[in-house]
């Protein structure tokens, strides 16, 4: 069974009274444990595709099946429940809640599920990303790399089946990027999560098993990568 299946996905926006189609009939499917990247130039539609796949937006036509759940049939609140159940996120600008400590940020997905022992789980995840002693620091008290590691811990907190990462190293320097990426793939391997990575960094994309290239909203290539870490 595919963990993510995208069928004939099209997205159109109204812009200045005109229709602007940013995705044209995209199709692909992913198996559990796959690592997958979407690459393409700015404005090619890759972030739109990620948003649709993660259930953050709804398509103009076509369907997205996440763990066999057809997302476009669900309301926004129902999609939120699906995200909490099956999906983890990593963003280019980290998207940590500035008023919460690192530990509290990691606890949110667990608390939303009503899980007991959220604090313990979150603490062990922070230790796993090397920030065990920084749990009570606020995001502004952490460096960019540390914030992204907190974000990694939060993404894996609810043991997601799918992890979406949008330009995860876009705001980091080269050294920090390498550390974060190593950690991301390591955690992903340990958890057996399917990873969907949006990037314009071809070297990073090459670390995944499969790369699709988008241009002008259309998939122009879909390549299996021979070597992956």
């Amino acid at each position, binding site marked *: 069974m595919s963990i993510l299946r995208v069928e004939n996905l099209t997205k159109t926006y109204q812009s200045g009274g005109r229709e602007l189609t940013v995705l044209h009939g995209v199709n692909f499917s992913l198996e559990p444990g796959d690592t997958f990247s979407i690459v393409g130039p700015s404005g090619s539609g890759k972030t739109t595709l990620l948003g649709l796949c993660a259930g953050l*937006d709804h398509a103009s036509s076509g369907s997205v099946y996440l763990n066999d759940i057809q997302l476009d049939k669900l309301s926004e609140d129902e999609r939120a*429940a699906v995200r909490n159940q099956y999906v983890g996120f990593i963003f280019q600008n980290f998207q940590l809640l500035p*008023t919460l400590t690192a530990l509290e940020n990691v606890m949110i997905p667990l*608390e939303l599920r009503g899980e007991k022992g959220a604090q313990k789980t979150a603490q062990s995840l922070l230790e796993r990303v090397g920030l065990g002693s920084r749990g009570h620091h606020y995001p502004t008290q952490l460096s960019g790399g540390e914030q992204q590691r907190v974000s990694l811990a939060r993404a894996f907190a609810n043991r997601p089946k799918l992890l979406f990462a949008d330009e995860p190293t876009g705001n980091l320097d080269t050294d920090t990027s390498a550390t974060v990426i190593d950690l991301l793939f390591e955690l992903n391997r340990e958890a057996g999560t399917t990873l969907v990575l949006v990037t314009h960094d071809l070297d990073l994309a090459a670390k995944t098993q499969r790369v699709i290239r988008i241009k002008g909203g259309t998939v122009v290539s879909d390549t299996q990568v021979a070597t992956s870490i």
Partner: protein
Amino acid sequence: MNFSWLFRMAWRDSRRSRQRLLLFMSAIVLGIAALVAINSFGDNLTRSIDEQARELLGADLTLSWSRPPSAKTQQLVKTLGRDRAYEVSFASLVSIPKTGGVRLAQVKGLEGNFPYYGTWEVEPASAVQTFRQAQSRIALVDDGLLVQLGAQPGDSVRLGNLSFLIAGRVTKTPGQAAIAATVAPTVFVPNQFLAGTGLLQRGSRIAYKYYYQFTPGTDVGASIKKYESVFDKEGINADTVADRKRQTGRSFADLTKYMSLVAFVALLLGCVGVASAVQLYVKEKITSVAILRTLGASGRQALLIYLVQTALMGLIGATVGAIIGSAIQLVLPQVFGRFLPVSVDTTLSGPAILGGIGTGLLISILFALMPLLAIRNVSPLRTLRTSYEDDLSGRDPLRWLVYLLVVGFIVGFAYWQTNNLMLALGFTGGLTVAFGILTLLGLGLIWLVRSFFPASWSYVWRQSLANLYRPNNQTLILVTAIGLGAFLIATLYLTQGLLLGRVELSASGNQPNMVLFDIQKEQIGGVRSLVQQQRLPVLQDVPVVTMRLTDINGKHPDVTKKDTTQKTPSWAFTREYRVTYRDTLISSEKLAAGKMPYQANGNIYVSIEKDFLDRLHLKLGDTLNFNVQGMLIPTIVGGTREVEWNRVQTNFVVVFPAGVLEQAPQFHVLMTRVPDNKTSAVLQRDLVNRFPNVSAIDLGLILKTVDEILGQVSFVIQFMALFSILTGLLVLGSSVVISKYQRMRESVLLRTLGASRSQILRITALEYGLLGFLAALSGILLSVVGTWALAQFVFDVPYRPDIVPLLVVTVVVTGLTILIGLFNSRDVLVRSPLEILRSEV
């Protein structure tokens, strides 16, 4: 739903905004404080009236009448109670021979041990005992009268033919609010000397009263119940402690309830500030909401997190308000001062505090809910695209539900306070119109600045004007909040001016400004010549006959009382009618229906004033039987008149035709016009000397009394309006702080790009100056239109608003706005750009 998590999240998320949230909620603090203070005061006043009810009356029972009852009833009233005191009172001119001062006063002849309860505050206190012994001609005189006439204890006061030694200065009489001494200051004399004054003449309007003390434990109401019908029939008014408690309690409950509506305006103003602040807060929180939505929080959960935050802050604001209000109520007895009939014992009032906190919490939640609803629609897509804005642009039908709840709450609150649905709806409607007009003025202002932007003006002007309409501007909220405060203050001044103007106008031109009354028939010639000797005109000379109504259409009061289909109020038969006779209408009258008074076929056709006709449910052709000093005179309603009452002039509800009452016992009222106070004083002195029973009242005295009462009333209203003004300033303060966060970056950028401190200072001062000026102008404009409508349609006087107080309000409001604006922006002005960037970003 996991509520404990919602509370935890609300708590965590508020960490960095608590100070600001508290600042938002401070806007409701003063409104709640005013509400709790006035309601606590109301509760304490009711309790004090209950506790001191006997002192309100000074006795267990009073019986009063103005027409001597039958001999049998006179005997009866002398047997009631364990002890009784007797009082005869009437209005008369009194004079102080030493100073030559003359003034109309209430004269009371007392015998017995009044008051039985409460303290009669007289200086020296020993004078009361001397007075009760009644062995010599001594008088106790109200303090106000002594001050006005320049007299003091030891001087003498002349009443008619007799002089009395002033033995004491009365500062408080049981059951009489101090303000009553302003309207009708009293001279108390032992009753046995009253006859010697020569003032108790036939036709004088004299009131008689017995004060009774009963054996402790007597149910006074029950023991006089059997005499009720006798009292009714004889026109005797019985007043027990319970009656007085009820009447006084009711009138003061009404007063405090209306005052609480003024406090509620302050609260609503604060709530508008809260809604505006929360709207900006929500804008700041949108990214956090989008993250929560991405991680799986539902729209409702996200909304509830922020609703819990604002509700908790509302609770804190309301509680602080309740504490402040409970403290403020301690000074309210001083504010109401001379209006209060009892000394108010101030203690904490549980219902007022809980009611205030509940009201504050509910109304702040409702107002905060308006901007908070948008949180439900925040899209998680914002985590990927910061420029995404489609989620909040759509219309939300739930907003209308919240608007409806807010309006419903206001109507409900006003109804709870006044028990009058029409008044509650009127209050809500008036507020909606005021808020609506101020909002429109604010919007109009933004449009004007935008449309006619002076592109050629200097940079400082352009920047400060642009701040009035750019995104996240506070123009609308400040024009509404400050404007409403200015509106309240300006309306207060203008209405006070209107009321005084109305009295002044009533005697302008050739209208009479002095009334001489209680002139006996045989004295009228002498009084006329006295007036003419002083070269004053006799503008009106009106005969007055007093009478009572015995039946309407042949139905006596006992029949109309039992017959539920009869709508005639019982007071129609117990009141005394002062009637004149003439065949024509005078300038203040207009024929509404039927004819002027006339006689035909042996029938007497009288004219009834239109409002009175309606209140008695009478119609043309109805028969009225009058009793004139024992003689019955049948009449028919032949016509009805509209009467302008607001003139210094004799007006009558019933007018007889000439040729009927000429021989009846009567007194005359004469009107003249005195050019100045000096002439008025000379005329009054001559009157006292030659016709001591004749009384005079001049417009100066009326104006002075009205002015004094209005002064007291307006002080109370100003005190309550102060809460609205301060709330307006708080809203201003919090709006400036919020906009400070919004503008900090820009000011820093300007500083970084080379703008001098003085330029930033001028931009800020100009912006807030413009806002304050335009807000004050909007409020004053609204007030001028409102009071013009009052003058035009209600008071019917020419409208000449006093410009000076309006200018003062404009200057003060503008100045305060600039000061608060600069004070809150001082960081940008005095600290280095880098310092601010590091601390704020």
